[in-house]
């Protein structure tokens, strides 16, 4: 078995298993805590808990105008990185092919040039994220190993992906192997660290939305 076979086979299954089980474990550990029924009367402008949760999940994706003057840099870099990642994952032909092989679902790929630009934007954004964590007083204070590891584990697949798409620097098979292995490293770390925000960011918003909707104080 070559390293590529290993990456495509057992390593992929193991990484998927760890990611799914880890996330389920982390979510279950939180969800199974005793839930206290709120006995307070709802507010005069109250909305339903579910609609409040859903509304907050969506609305928090857009920065509030009153804060934007002070948070513009963070918001811009964050948007660039996440949109870039979405374009790469959902628009890149090889990624669509992978999904098609696994599920049968298929959709048209974006032109290679657009995916290449998105990859570049994502890479630069990730480098800026690291730079800001190292230099901004607040981010330097808050940042820990988890933060840097999570960024690095996101950056490596993007970098190896760009090299792979351009078929440069190293042989195609070698690049493909390291690209797949780097994605698997990301998948393995995902449930344990900050990368789990793919789930918890939305869970956090939903929890707040449900509570504030009952009060009639959704923002």
């Amino acid at each position, binding site marked *: 078995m070559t390293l590529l076979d290993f990456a495509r086979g057992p390593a992929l299954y193991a990484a998927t298993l760890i990611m799914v089980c880890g996330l389920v474990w982390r979510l279950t550990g*939180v969800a199974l805590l005793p839930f*206290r029924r709120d*006995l*307070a009367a709802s507010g005069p402008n109250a909305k339903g808990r579910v609609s409040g949760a859903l509304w907050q999940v969506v609305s928090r994706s857009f920065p509030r105008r009153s804060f934007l003057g002070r948070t513009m840099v963070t918001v811009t870099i964050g948007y660039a990185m996440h949109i870039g990642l979405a374009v790469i994952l959902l628009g890149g032909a090889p990624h669509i092919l992978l999904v098609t092989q696994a599920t049968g679902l298929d959709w048209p790929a974006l032109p290679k040039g657009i995916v290449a630009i998105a990859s570049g934007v994502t890479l630069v954004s990730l480098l800026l994220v690291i730079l800001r964590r190292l230099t*901004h007083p607040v981010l330097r204070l808050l940042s820990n190993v988890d933060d840097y590891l999570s960024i690095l584990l996101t950056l490596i697949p993007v970098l190896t992906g760009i090299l792979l798409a351009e078929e440069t620097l190293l042989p195609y098979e070698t690049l493909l192997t390291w690209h797949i292995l780097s994605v698997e490293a990301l998948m393995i770390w995902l449930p344990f660290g900050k990368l789990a925000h793919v789930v918890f960011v939305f869970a956090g918003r939903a*929890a707040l939305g449900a509570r504030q909707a009952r009060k009639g104080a959704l923002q």
Partner: protein
Amino acid sequence: MSPMPPSRAPKIAPATRRIAESRSQEDQTRLDAAMRGFITDFGPEAATWMEACLHCGQCAEACQFYVETGDPKYTPIWKIEPFKQAYNRQMGPFAPLFRMFGLTPSVSLGQLEHWQELLYDSCNMCGRCTMVCPAGIDIADLVEKARHGMFDAGLVPPDYLGALAGKERETGSPFGIAPNAMRDSLLEIGEKHGVEMHVDEPRAEVVPAVSSIDLKMYPDSIAATAKVLNHIGVRWSFMTKGFDADNVSLTAGDREGQKIVTEAIVAAATDCGAQVLIMPECGHSYTEMRWEAANTVGHALPFRVLHMSEYLAEALEAGQLHLRPVPKDGQGHGVTFHDPCQVSRRSGRSDAPRRIMQALGLDLHELADHGPDSWCCGGGGGVALIGRAKTLRNHAFDIKKRQVAETGADTVYVTCTGCRQTFEHGFKDAGAETGVGSLLDLVAEQLDEKEKTS
């Protein structure tokens, strides 16, 4: 989860003194008490928020303590860092892994003592950070839980917050005012202001709770409450068996004291068959009674809880409250209004005071950030009651002072006793001449008895 390597952990200087009252307790016992206190009320909601932080730092930009000082230690989510560490090590879904691999250092008592300033002196629990957080983390709620832990470990600042909370737990009032003394004071205020007082009536539809701070500093507001309720013509009464609306215990983190105060008010209002309990112009006490009291006593309340501004707005709408418009000042300065965080941002009632101001015909010049976006006055969350926090509080107040100045208004109206105090002290310390007024007092001055009788 937030593993923090020791290299990046804050340098903890040995505590110069034990701040806590419970000095004799062993450190470990106090640490255990702190962690138990923190997680006692933990449900899926709070745990989700503990897992959701991205360390994006945006909450700092919403906090006036950071914005005005530029000191990163005032970043809201950093204020609960020791409790995040403890959560990861002891309670989080991967706690065994964190302990096994030493991914997060254990929390020390010295660390908690160091954090006292961050959790008490520099947090108004105003929830502005909650509003900016992309993960929807209610940091204000987590700070409240962290204060439970700090209180249980004997780490509440003693001057004056801890002292007042202690007195409140002991007597039911932060100033130790006994029910009969309260009754005498209320009757005296009525006599002095020529207002008919109703105290301890056997039956009452409306019960206003009383802030001891109003009693000490703003008795006019108590007279104004009576005057307005007499004007509305409702059957009302102060109840001295449970009157203390300040609930200092809540901001100190004393759950037991909080419960004692809440239960007394609920019992007093229930006994006289109240349909409405009015919380005076005090923000945190309103939050407690409006959103927590039912959970504290274990059943739905048999009456509605309204902030004074909500009650007045409802009375206006029902045609029970008749007001004369305030004459326009000749120079067109107009007035501005400060939204109390707990009523506006946290409870969604920015509309009520504005309806009243509209009825009064006030020339309202809104602050640049108003309604739910309003900055806290800097005194909320018990900060106004911490003597040593004065300089920091005044720093935090600077943003408010600037925004008030930008409106050109010569008077700021408030609907919260704590905010009123902070504004008065803040303007005085800054040598500003801007006036500070209570909206309730203004309503009482502008009652239109003629319109009512016609």
